[in-house]
């Protein structure tokens, strides 16, 4: 029962943080709302007894990444307040709202109506449907076994992914530099 | 050189060498050879095309010579597995039904090449013609349903380029229309072919597209399946023929096509439709063909009357010939769906006849256009005076097209009407009117173009050159020979037709009841003999005399 209550509270924090990110007109507040959301997620990890993950969530996400965000926001100018009354694409908010609502209905339906004969598998706050984590070993050991054992390929593939991201980022921001060459115009046949 | 290359492809054939594959391979190799020629030497390309097509024609005549007269089955069969995982095999063979279409293809192509000129870019022009020849040969020879479809579809590409690249007026539009019409119609045929093979293969356990196997086992299909498959085939063939409501591509394609294209289109490619009806309609799915015969009889008859009526109203000579094709093909369909020996024999013969005479007509119209740069009937007139030889040739060809006794057209039409009369009386009665209308529009056109006073530019028109006379002479000879003595041809067609009719009789309940009696081969000849004896035979001779005089 305690589980359910903690889950509900943490879930609400996550949601509120998420809404705060979207609804705040001041980017700094948005970034701080994100931190709140990350903390909620960390609590959820603790609930699943994944203490190491909870720690990483706070150190890496709430610590490093959000700080990076704040740096960027400060560099761009903290006074930039976006005028929310202007819609760049007319009707996009309504459309987004509808699409989001549709997805919500779809997923809630999936969560609450599933299970067939055995009854609904709704939110229970119980631990994950996979086998319980080996309690005899420290959490980090479990994680390492999983990461470097079963999922080692995925782990290594992530390295490749990061390499690509780095190469791509460097290439795209590099100054094109080269001289402008003459261009063959489309639809014109006379040069 | 060429036979050696082919010997490798054919291992154990009854013929001295791979006779039937060479009919396809020689034009293909010629096309490859042409592709390697320098682009600025059009005369080389034409010479190569002429040699290649003549060799192919000679091989087709050799096939005719070695063809066993009394054998109703497929002869000179060349069978190899090709894509065994798909059940696709390379099976070629001729029987009495396809034999003369093969020969017709072999003869018409060299004649079309010799009698016409490519006005620009001769190299690709002859290349496409050679590929067209290979494709047409393949379609008539294929005994594998899928192989047939491959050839049936692939001929669209060269024809598309010929019409679009070397045609007149709205050539691009006509070419697009031609390609898309035919492709749309045969799209569903592919589904039909595959479904047929799958459904039959499920029963027999061996997936195959071999027409002979499919025809023997197609009775395992449910009625609905057979009906749908037949309809998918029939749509493709009906567009190709073309049958009445689906004919609208033909006048455009014919009119805008270059002369050689029109000759081949009318002479060879339209026959793919009627041949398809016989081989892949009647033979493969006789029950449904019999059940739906009334539809096709009706459409055929409508085509006869409609084609003739519209032809009468044409102001353009080439368009007139194009519409006359619709009428003539209507006759052939009437004969096919009469579904008896006379009707089918007549239909097969008439396919050849139509190829010869309409091919010749298109060549003549092409010559007129080359000289006068118009095909408007109103602008022509009195050509007989300035071009008497052309007028004479035109007369013979026209009379053959009308169906004058003693010329080839008569034999086919007579047999068709005879056959239709015994199994589909009222359709035949309406169909007869087509003969009268044909006389009307062709004679009228002849009168307007060749008779009357010579006026304007017409005075300067030159008569046929010697080379042109040599070019068209084989067709004139065929027109007369087939009209006077069709027996050798009928002797070869009939056994296969009889076998087909027997196959239908076996499969369709109560089929033989409506047929008066199986007609022995001799019976047909007697009928023709009677017809010729009754006073018409003399006209042909008079015609020949007239030709000689001029």
């Amino acid at each position, binding site marked *: 029962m305690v589980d359910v209550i903690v889950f509900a509270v943490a879930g609400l924090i996550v949601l509120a943080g998420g809404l705060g990110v979207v609804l705040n007109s001041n980017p700094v507040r948005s970034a701080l709302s994100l931190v709140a959301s990350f903390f909620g997620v960390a609590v959820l990890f603790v609930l699943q007894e994944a203490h190491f993950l909870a720690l990483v969530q706070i150190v890496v996400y709430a610590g490093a990444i959000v700080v990076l965000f704040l740096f960027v926001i400060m560099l761009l100018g903290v006074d930039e307040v976006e005028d929310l009354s202007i819609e760049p694409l007319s009707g996009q908010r309504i459309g987004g709202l509808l699409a989001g609502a549709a997805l919500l209905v779809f997923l809630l339906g*999936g969560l609450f109506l599933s299970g067939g004969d055995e009854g609904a598998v709704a939110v229970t706050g119980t631990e994950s449907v996979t086998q319980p984590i080996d309690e005899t070993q420290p959490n980090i050991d479990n994680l390492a076994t999983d990461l470097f054992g079963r999922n080692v390929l995925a782990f290594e593939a992530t390295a490749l992914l990061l390499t690509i991201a780095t190469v791509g980022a460097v290439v795209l921001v590099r100054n094109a530099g080269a001289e402008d060459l003459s261009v063959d115009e489309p639809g014109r046949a006379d040069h | 050189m060429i036979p050696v290359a082919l010997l490798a492809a054919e291992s154990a054939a009854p013929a001295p060498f791979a006779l039937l594959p060479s009919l396809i391979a020689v034009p293909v190799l010629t096309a490859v050879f042409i592709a390697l020629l320098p682009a600025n030497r059009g005369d080389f390309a034409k010479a190569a095309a002429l040699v290649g097509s003549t060799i192919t024609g000679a091989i087709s005549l050799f096939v005719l010579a070695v063809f066993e007269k009394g054998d109703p089955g497929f002869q000179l069969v060349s069978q190899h597995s090709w894509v065994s995982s798909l059940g696709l095999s390379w099976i070629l063979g001729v029987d009495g039904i396809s034999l003369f279409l093969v020969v017709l293809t072999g003869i018409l192509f060299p004649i079309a090449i010799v009698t016409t000129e490519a006005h620009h870019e001769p190299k690709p022009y002859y290349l496409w013609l050679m590929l067209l020849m290979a494709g047409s040969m393949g379609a008539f020879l294929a005994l594998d349903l899928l192989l047939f479809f491959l050839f049936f579809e692939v001929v669209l590409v060269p024809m598309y380029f010929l019409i679009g690249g070397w045609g007149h007026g709205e050539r691009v539009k006509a070419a697009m229309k031609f390609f898309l019409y035919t492709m749309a119609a045969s799209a569903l045929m592919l589904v039909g072919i595959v479904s047929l093979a799958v459904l039959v293969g499920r029963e027999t356990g061996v997936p195959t597209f071999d027409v002979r196997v499919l025809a023997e086992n197609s009775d395992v299909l449910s009625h609905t399946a057979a009906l749908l498959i037949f309809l998918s085939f029939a749509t493709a063939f009906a567009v190709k023929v073309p049958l009445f409501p689906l004919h609208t591509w033909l006048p455009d394609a014919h009119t805008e096509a270059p002369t050689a294209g029109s000759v081949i289109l009318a002479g060879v490619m339209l026959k793919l439709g009627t041949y398809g009806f016989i081989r892949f309609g009647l033979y493969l799915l006789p029950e449904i063909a019999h059940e739906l015969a009334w539809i096709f009889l009706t459409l055929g008859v409508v085509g006869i009357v409609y084609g003739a009526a519209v032809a009468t109203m044409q102001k353009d000579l080439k368009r007139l010939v194009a519409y006359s094709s619709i009428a003539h093909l209507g006759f052939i369909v009437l004969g096919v769906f009469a579904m008896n020996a006379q009707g089918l024999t007549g239909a097969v013969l008439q396919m050849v006849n139509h190829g010869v005479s309409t091919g010749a007509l298109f060549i003549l119209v092409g010559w007129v256009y080359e000289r006068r740069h118009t095909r408007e009937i109103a602008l022509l007139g009195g050509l007989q005076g300035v071009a008497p030889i052309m007028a004479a040739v035109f007369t013979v060809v026209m009379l053959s097209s009308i169906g004058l006794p003693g010329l080839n057209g008569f034999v086919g039409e007579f047999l068709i009407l005879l056959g239709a009369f015994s199994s589909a009386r009222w359709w035949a009665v309406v169909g007869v009117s087509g003969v009268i209308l044909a006389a009307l529009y062709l004679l009228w056109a002849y009168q307007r173009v060749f008779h009357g006073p010579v006026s304007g530019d017409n005075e300067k028109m030159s008569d046929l050159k010697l080379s042109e006379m040599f070019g068209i002479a084989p067709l004139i000879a065929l027109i007369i020979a087939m009209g006077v003595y069709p027996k050798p041809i009928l002797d070869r067609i009939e056994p296969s037709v009889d076998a087909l009719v027997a196959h239908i009789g076996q499969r369709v309940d109560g089929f033989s009841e409506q047929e008066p009696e199986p007609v022995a081969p001799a019976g047909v000849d007697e009928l023709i003999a009677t017809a010729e004896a009754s006073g018409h035979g003399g006209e042909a001779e008079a015609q020949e005399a007239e030709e000689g005089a001029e």
Partner: protein
Amino acid sequence: MIALVAQDTQTVALPGPPVVWSLLWPFLILAVGGVLLVTVTSVVPVLRGRSFPAAFTCLTALASGLSLIPVWQRVDRLDLVGGTIGSGTEGPRSLVSGAYAVDGFTVFVTGVICVSVFLTALLLDGYLRREGLDGPEWYVLMLMSASGGVLLASANDLIVSFLGLEILSIAAYVMAALHLRRAESQEAGFKYFVLGALASAFFLYGIALVYGATGSTTLQGIFAAGPNAAGLDPRTDSSLILAGMALLLVGFAFKVSAVPFHFWAPDVYQGAPSPVVAFMASGVKVAGFAGLARIFLYAFQPYWADWRPAIAALAVLSTIVGGLLALAQRNVKRMLAYSSINHAGFMLLAIHAAASPDDGGQRGAEALLFYLLAYTVMVTGTFGVATIVGGRGDGRHDLDDYRGLSRSNPLLAGVMAILLFSQAGVPFTSGFFAKFRVIGALASDGSYALGGAAMLAAVISAVLYLRIVVSMFLIDNGEAHEADHEAVDAVAGGRAAPEAEGDTLVEASPEASVLTSVRAPAPTALLAVCLAAAVTLVLGLLPDLGGGILSDAASALLLAG
């Protein structure tokens, strides 16, 4: 292998999973090749020239392709050591603790991706020279993207699938935007990135839901969680699974540009550099289809009756909408984008048939594989010709830019005609047999109506190929526009092409109108398109690839069923 320091400072040995390196070579060569290229060219600036990276990429693709031969032999002999799933004869044989599947299907798809990389590298060479761009980054990104594609096709675990998909896509986003001087290119890259990221989000959410429902991310685990016992209804009433499958399908549908998730394709294809489009349309799409096929035909096989109708709907919509929308276009790259949507429909139909429990299944899987190969070659060649015709600046993609190509460069026009007719499905080309196999599989499955609809859509799409052919061969003077428009009107029932400004065309003599880049294209690019046309013709004459490769590879995909 890896040592960890535990709480009481006692060293705990962590044994990694057994890895059969020799079977990973095809993947590793591509991935390491990419990393090596970026390293070497950074360290040795001399090698940053234009020839070395292209040659290196071609050789890498070739090496990866050749390394498939021993893998194929080993797979065929079934003598695999290393981790296997299930009883060893069932399910894909796999490596690295079951994350990476090595079977005939993987080998085949890897081969197809290598073909795509090889041809695109040749195209890129000519393109970069013409555009005055340098930099090995294009090749680096392509090699890495290809390795991601191989990973996606070989993934035996949804996490690995996702990573493969991301490696594949992110490199492609960057490549689309890589022509830094062209705003269109940047815009295309951005569009591709945003929509691709959305698709990835769907994909990831789908993985989460499936994991939640089945408790496993491995394909084997998901399969085992399903009602796969004989006699059970092949459906599920678990909405969690259904929602997960739906989201995964949406993610894949974005990647393979199936209608109604196709909106990005025409814009991106139009804006991105042409050789990159060649790779996007071939390699990226092939990998997407491979992943889709493996996940759905294997992991979700127990629920085939649930997802099959969705695939059928996507397929029919793609074939028809792809064909119809192409009619209104005048930009060749846009037209080809719609044509690739049409092809995607056909490949989805093959997957539909492959899900069939009877003999349509095997034929469907074979049809899919053959289609992937034929399509890759065709589409790379076609966009290759578009690259050449595009001229400097890569902007000449209007139908009118193809006018008179048969005179200015008959070889190029002939090659394009072969490729276009093949795409239209004319006999004796690979395109015909690709479509034929799909129709055959559908007929074996009893889905005649789907086959009929697909063939009619193929005829509609034939119009677009014919219009390009008309431009290249049949039009050389002022009648261009009228004739073309009328031709379209004739088939589209009076539907007029929207552009009317074509009348302002400059009439020039044929000689003057020919660009140097078209008259004398880069030899490497010409080689690529000629190779593509040749393979298209050879596959049209030998559509069973001369052996049982196709059927072996296909049955590997279906072992689960």
